[in-house]
């Protein structure tokens, strides 16, 4: 099981970060988006190749209004 933004996600271990983004209807080059896995940044250039391990915690973040 993979956790995506704090919730269980249908994707299985071995899926790429790009696959996670596709599941969120986000293009592979989505601007204003950043991804962390298990508390570390996954650089944009690695979205296609970075494969998620079992129990991975994925955070997909974007700009929100804030001071």
């Amino acid at each position, binding site marked *: 099981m993979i956790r995506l*933004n*704090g919730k269980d996600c249908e994707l299985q271990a071995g899926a790429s970060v790009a696959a996670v983004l596709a599941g*969120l*209807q*986000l293009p592979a080059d989505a*601007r*204003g*988006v*950043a*991804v*962390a896995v298990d*508390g*570390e*940044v996954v*650089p*944009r250039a690695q979205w296609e190749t970075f494969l998620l391990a079992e129990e991975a915690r994925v*955070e*997909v*973040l*974007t*700009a*929100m*209004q*804030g*001071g």
Partner: protein
Amino acid sequence: MMDHGLANGPPDADALTIAGRTLRSRLLLGTGGFASLELLAAAIAASGTEMVTVALRRIDPGARGSLTDTLSDAGVMLLPNTAGCHTARDAVITARLAREAFATDWVKLEVIGDEDTLLPDAPELLRAAEELVGEGFVVLPYTTDDPVLARRLVDVGCAAVMPLGSPIGSGMGIRNPYNIALIRESVEVPVVLDAGIGTASDAALAMELGCDAVLAASAISRAQDPVRMAGAIRAAVEAGRLARAAGRIPRRLYATASTTNEGLADLAAGTLADRAT
């Protein structure tokens, strides 16, 4: 706009430069608290700001409208913040994520030490600032009004310091103007008054104390008429800047007549003879 510069110089004569980036507006806008993206866009236009803060949060696929698009259309520079971070580690990782998301090395560094007051955690802030400067970030730390801490932050390489006037969103203005003036005296980098602005006069005071810019968020976004307040605070920042350059008169306990007594008429009743008796 009122682009009076100083001493009738060219329009950019009084521009603010942070880390080599020139800004004509000395008002930074926080984007938090606006009821809609349309209202935010209107406030940005009314404020004249060229730089706005944004936060990083989990994406909501069902969200209506895109903040990124709104800000891109407005043509403003993004200053990502690390709001909500309580440790240096979280703040550093959030800054790295913001760099990925927004392709900017700039960060408004916030490390919060207390939930009720949202006051900065000084040791964690300093640690995070040093780490991020080492990674090539342009760090603008949200800090207390402590002149010593401000100097320490500059010593580790921060591009500006952003002392609070009072707690975030409190609208309490500048509780310790003396410290803000001391910070201005003690560091070479720009000083941006951050947090506590409640209304236009607070922003004017910040500039009169020597601050180089003001960041306003709640004061505008939560005003009854945010767009009108954006214009008011814009004017106040410009007025305060002009007043600072003009040099205020010293405060005195007693009155000092602004009209001379030289040539004052003798209006006492009676003739000279009357007075002689």
